[in-house]
């Protein structure tokens, strides 16, 4: 028998309440039930990072997280960090530096970079590489993504 649990959590700053079966995954709740399709599923095994969302500000793989586990916590998706009238600073840097081609990995990268810069506004090269080590991109060869993130670390330094 399927057990359904009532959960409530903050999604991109708005509190929502839903009933979810205990075995439903966060990515399916977000994409299929709540209609936020920016979060992507690729490997489905916590390796690629395409499905990255933030839980209380920290990146997690939504492909391998139970929806019931976000009860009373805060989830941020790519929709939540995209301004209604354009692009965020991080998204702009990815565009400027050519940090995306097909774009499938991009939401995951943007979420990881968001979390990185939140805790470490001026990451070193090694810190950037270490933090993003678990996000995979089949198109860009990573150099342009790295340069995009580096530009953000630098620009803040100058400010």
């Amino acid at each position, binding site marked *: *028998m399927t057990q359904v649990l009532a959960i409530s959590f903050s999604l991109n700053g708005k509190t929502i309440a839903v009933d979810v079966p*205990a*075995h439903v*995954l966060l990515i399916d709740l977000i994409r299929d039930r709540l209609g936020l399709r920016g979060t992507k599923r690729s490997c489905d*095994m*916590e390796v690629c990072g395409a499905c*990255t969302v933030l839980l209380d500000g920290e990146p997690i793989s939504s492909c391998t997280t139970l929806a019931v586990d976000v009860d009373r916590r805060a989830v941020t998706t790519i929709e939540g960090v995209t301004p209604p009238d354009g692009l965020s600073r991080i998204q702009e840097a990815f565009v400027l530096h050519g940090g995306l081609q097909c774009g499938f990995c991009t939401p995951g990268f943007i979420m990881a970079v968001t979390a990185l810069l939140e805790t470490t506004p001026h990451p070193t090269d090694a810190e950037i590489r270490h933090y993003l080590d*678990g996000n995979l991109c089949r198109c860009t060869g990573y150099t342009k993504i790295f340069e995009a993130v580096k530009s953000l670390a630098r620009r803040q330094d100058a400010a």
Partner: protein
Amino acid sequence: MLPSPFQFERPSTIADAVRAVGDSGDGMFYAGGTELLLALKMRVIRIDRLIDIKGIPGLDCIAVNGMNEIEIGARCTHRKISGDPVIREHVPALASLCAEVANIRVRNVGTIGGNLCFGEPHADPPTMLAALNARLVLEGSRGTREVYADDFIRSEMETVREPDELLRVIVFPRPAGPVTYRRFKHGERPSVNVAMAWSLNPGRSTITSARVRVGALGSRPQPLTIVEGALRNVAVAEARRAIETALPAALDQLEVNADRHGGADYKRHLAGVLLLRNADEAIIAGGSWPK
């Protein structure tokens, strides 16, 4: 992929969690779910109930206890251990190990207890904890018992833990000398890893005893007893030569599986390389121990 349906329980005490797993049908403890959910999604494990232990207070503490031992709650995530001030001060090698496990997302939710209880041979913490002579404290329906890290993993993906025994805490003596750890990997998980813990005399010039463990080669971490013997009461400055002399015989004794991580001879060779690099690091660290 979606797991098959299960019941989800959130006990708030260890006793309730133990009782819940023992109830009818197949129940399993659930912490970060980074291994368990993968197995459930692939349908290689079937369960009726998941017993979430994340709501039990006290399982994520890290402290030095009254016996000069370090205690790490089983529910501590890799991220928490890597940033914890007690671990960074007393066992910096364990903090760095946890900072390199998997990726940022797995480190954020995956726990050290889940890592140990899953019994995956290609893992980092079991090797280091065996070198630290750690004890694992299990709470079950028949009471509390302690198992040495060396004896915990029985074989690949199998531990001596009973299904209704909860791993509560990991305890080990505060190191009395440098602890070093290295691993080699070309995929997600380590292909070979080597941990070494030295106890030094008060003058820091001599190794009074050494524990050396090699992991990921067989089903569980293995001691390099010949190297340990060769290091007993040896001057720190002579450690590298002592290891080099003992190494061929010691490596021969290792049980090494050939798998997708590499052939047996290759991985045995890597174990020797990593051990000597650990030794070089320990010799330098030994001179400034404790910091």
